[in-house]
């Protein structure tokens, strides 16, 4: 009985700490308004410029290319925002708050969860700002679609933040940043089926696509937008995303626990 009580108290105190870490992420995001705006420029360029240029592309379906790519660009925004947020921990470790957090009596798992939920929330806000722009590219989002997209975005982000965190725990300086962008982030983006249907891609590309977790994220977003998936039924995609997020949080907690 008393052991259960101790355990419950411990859980409660860790939950409070997770809340604190989540709140920290939100505060930081909110106070960097310029970042909010600048991070919207890239998706808009893709949608309105790249998308317009590719208008003539035939997809075999009824949707226009811009309509087709909209969920993909949502996924891209989540990818960039989340991985960046994870990687920025490198700075925090050198000059910032991370050291303070690491010497505090907080379990490493709580640190990762707090960070992932916080960044997930900021990615969610970022994506939500993009949603009303859907009409610009001919996507008609019903309130129901929007309501499904929102939690889906949080779920997708959590795993992506952890990719950033994992990179941050391996490389120790920002010099490797371009390396990360070209070796990790861009391949994830290009093989996720955000810009073209994977179903018509060559076999080798499809292999990369199917082992890429963002593929299922983008496809689930596509389902929420148009009502049908292109790869596997949506419930499996959500299961994959969920399992992936849990695995990544576990791996990151382990990586953070290694004291060099």
């Amino acid at each position, binding site marked *: 009985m008393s052991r259960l009580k101790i355990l419950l108290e411990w859980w409660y*105190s860790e939950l409070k700490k997770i809340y604190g*870490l989540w709140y920290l992420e939100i*505060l930081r995001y909110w106070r960097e308004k310029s970042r909010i705006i600048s991070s919207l420029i890239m998706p808009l360029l893709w949608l309105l410029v790249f998308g317009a240029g590719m208008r003539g592309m035939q997809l075999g379906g009824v949707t226009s290319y811009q309509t087709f790519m909209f969920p993909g660009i949502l996924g891209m925004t989540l990818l960039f925002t989340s991985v960046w947020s994870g990687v920025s921990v490198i700075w925090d470790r*050198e000059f*910032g*708050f991370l050291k*303070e957090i690491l010497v*505090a009596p907080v379990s490493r798992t709580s640190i990762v969860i707090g960070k992932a939920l916080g960044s997930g929330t900021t990615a969610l806000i970022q994506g939500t700002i993009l949603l009303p722009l859907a009409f610009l590219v001919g996507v008609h989002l019903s309130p129901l679609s929007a309501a499904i997209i929102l939690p889906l975005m949080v779920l997708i982000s959590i795993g992506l933040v952890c990719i950033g965190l994992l990179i941050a725990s391996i490389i120790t300086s920002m010099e490797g940043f371009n390396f990360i962008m070209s070796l990790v982030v861009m391949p994830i983006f290009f093989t996720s089926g955000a810009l073209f249907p994977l179903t018509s891609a060559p076999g080798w590309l499809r292999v990369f696509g199917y082992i890429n977790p963002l593929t299922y994220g983008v496809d689930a977003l596509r389902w929420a937008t148009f009502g049908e998936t292109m790869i596997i039924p949506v419930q499996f995609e959500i299961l994959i995303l969920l399992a992936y997020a849990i695995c990544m949080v576990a791996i990151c907690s382990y990586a953070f626990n290694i004291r060099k």
Partner: protein
Amino acid sequence: MQPKFAIETRELTKKYDALTAVDHLNIEIGYGEVFGLLGPNGAGKTTAISMLCTIINPTSGCAQVNGFDILKRPAEVRKSIGIVFQDPSIDGRLSGRENLQLHACLYDMPSTLTRRRIAEVLELVGLEDRADDRMKFYSGGMRRRLELARGLLHSPKVLFLDEPTLGLDPQTREHMWDYIENLAKEACMTIVLTTHYMEEAERLCNRVAIIDYGTIKVIDSPDNLKSTLKGDVISINSTEPEKLATKLTDLKIAPEAEFSDGTLRLTVPDADKLIPRLIEIATDIGVQVNSVSVHRPTLNDVFLHYTGREIRADEPESAMKMHMMMMRRK
């Protein structure tokens, strides 16, 4: 029951490839002590503190902080300690109060206690008026003071200060020293500080460990360390130095007397007590004393004695990092 020592290390060692940053460190620090790790940059001070704070693991050896093993019970160690890092560890986007509130949250402090303690520590470091400003508008000294306040917020048993006054102007440094002295006197807090400023170690510490290349050369109180050197040097300028020297040698007061240009130099254990006697003796034998000056050995002399070199008063090793941080925060 309180453990015997606030900090106890046994052969604590940290190796990075070929470099041994901390080499078989053995220290015992009692409760209520202000203990200084004195050494040049790169001597292993920060590495030693990082191990005690459970940020990095030792390669070999062990240590206990507040009775808890740093490897087996890191959570308890973390609850027992407060730390002010050498490099900034605050978020400039948050206000001072928000930084403190987050700290309280991470240490699971009840909300009424949090409010009371935040008010207390802000008053201690004199930042009540600026508490609600974003910290990016703080000066370097104010940031440091807030970091000190934060380290104290959860009333830790042991406080680590890693170069607490590095890069601060003399006036702010003086204030920091006052705060730290008050903590030691009034709160009886165990404080471990690293520094490469001699005057800082001399002023604040009960005991000092001189550390170089990862090993401790000597541990003692600043006064004892200084007295292990031959002693104070008294220079007496008088009308007849030879006569005075002979008399003093006869009286066995100063066996090591040397003189040049009418100035007699004596190396003695305790100059303060001897000077009145010297004047008396000189007057008795009719020698007129023009001036007397005393050079006391400083910790700098001690450092030189034990390491064979001067302490390097370099620029902060984090100067480069600071620059990068400024670039980023812009």
